[in-house]
């Protein structure tokens, strides 16, 4: 079954969608979309370095993303212009990455594959890595779900109840770097944040509990993955962007559903 590249692609996309769902909720609740962007941009630097020194692209991406995300987590609350610093660090990484790639001679590198994903080239090894990463993230998020919610609402309150905001934030950082790294092959650096926030935001229209939002985001994400890959075949379009387009359609549809059913009174 895994011999079929479409099956591999679909399974890989489902893995990323599953891991993105609970993490994506926190990205939305904590307004971390920009943080996610910076982490994703850092991944390109990681990719460039791994191409230059010839080690695995996956490990390069995860190490540099983790470095970036940790730096941001550590400076959080200390700097009043975190927003700008994130922009500086993220774009610095992406620019440096692109310059480094231009120095690598002899190899033709398809940058588009990293920017928007290359899901049809997912190997068995990629699939294994993606699912290992996804399962790690899902276990982390389920395990730390309630403490993370408490930290999100008020760090002092969480600390008084015996939870360490620093540790909980680190869990998010690790999860974010992992999702970015496993998502590169599927939707690419440009669209990984879309996989995090669009399914979660779509689910938000019709749910009234945090858990409902996590599960709803999973359903939207997986449906987008399957339908996106199908439609990419039918219309001969790039796969990653097609998945994100389907997710965006879900967002609009659920918005309409919520407006019609007047659920918006809770929003």
């Amino acid at each position, binding site marked *: 079954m895994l011999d079929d590249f479409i099956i591999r692609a679909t399974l890989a996309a489902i893995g990323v969608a599953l891991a993105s769902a609970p993490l994506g909720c926190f990205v939305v609740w904590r307004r971390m979309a920009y943080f996610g962007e910076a982490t994703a941009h850092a991944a390109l630097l990681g990719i460039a370095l791994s191409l230059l020194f010839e080690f695995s692209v996956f490990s390069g991406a995860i190490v540099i993303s983790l470095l970036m995300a940790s730096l941001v987590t550590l400076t959080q609350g200390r700097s009043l212009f975190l927003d700008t610093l994130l922009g500086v660090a993220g774009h610095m990484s992406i620019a440096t990455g692109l310059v480094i790639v231009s120095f690598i001679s002899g190899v033709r590198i398809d940058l588009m594959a990293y920017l928007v994903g290359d899901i049809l080239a997912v190997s068995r090894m990629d699939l294994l890595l993606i699912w290992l990463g996804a399962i790690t993230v899902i276990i982390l998020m389920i395990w730390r779900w309630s403490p993370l919610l408490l930290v999100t*609402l*008020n760090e*002092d309150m969480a*600390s*008084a*109840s015996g939870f360490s905001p620093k540790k909980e934030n680190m869990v998010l950082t690790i999860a974010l770097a992992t999702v970015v790294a496993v998502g590169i092959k599927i939707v690419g650096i440009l669209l990984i944040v879309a996989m995090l926030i669009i399914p979660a935001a779509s689910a*938000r229209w019709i*749910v*009234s*509990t945090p858990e409902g939002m996590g599960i709803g985001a999973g359903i939207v994400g997986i449906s987008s993955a399957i339908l996106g890959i199908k439609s990419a075949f039918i219309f001969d379009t790039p796969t990653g962007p097609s998945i994100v387009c389907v997710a965006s359609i879900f967002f609009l549809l659920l918005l309409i559903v919520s407006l019609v059913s007047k659920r918006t009174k809770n929003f």
Partner: protein
Amino acid sequence: MLIEVTDLNVRYGAKTVLKNLHLFLNRGEIVTIVGPNGSGKTTLFKAIIGTAPISSGKIKLKDNLKMGYVPQQLNIDHSLPMTVGRFLLLAQQKNQKAFEKALEIVGAKDLLNRQIYNLSGGEMQRVLLAKAIINEPDVLLLDEATRGLDQSGSAAFYRKIENIRNDLDCSVLMISHDLHVVMGASDRVICLNGHICCEGAPKSVATSPEYKALFGSDVDGTFALYRHSHDHNHHTENEKL
């Protein structure tokens, strides 16, 4: 002794926020910290809770000390759907009896199914108080919990705190700006301005020159004002906040 702070110093960068601070809290006490803006009141709380960087000194908490903290506000975003009921049990071992008692004390039963971002200021304050006492804490920490309440509302709130102290046999450490009402509701008052200016029984603090120097001459008679309103408000004992 539940909390013992010895020679505490907290610095943020080059700025010393708390200097050589000593403080203790016994079981059953209500201690109020007053001080002008920027005097380090919230930083002191954060140091006790464990979210402020301690440069030197020691904070000793009783073993397994349970703290209930009432923050000024939550970082609640409309994107986060959460009912009051869910919030109260968040990261909490479910204890139905304590849960219902907390709701009873603060009067939040009718709020259980409401979304927390839709609560008014007063309702939010009741919910935050319920969340803090649901775990039957040894110490209740209140950070300007009466913000937005008028004087009689504040007086009613402090009576509620007194009742909670008696009910749960806990200590209360609170920050307050309500000079008018808070003094008489406390066993001890600590006047903070980076360091401790003066402390002691409310009456002696209110008449001390340090206290007057810090809050200006307009505090004259505030203590009498509290006594006055307190004398005439006993019938509101069971009123909801």
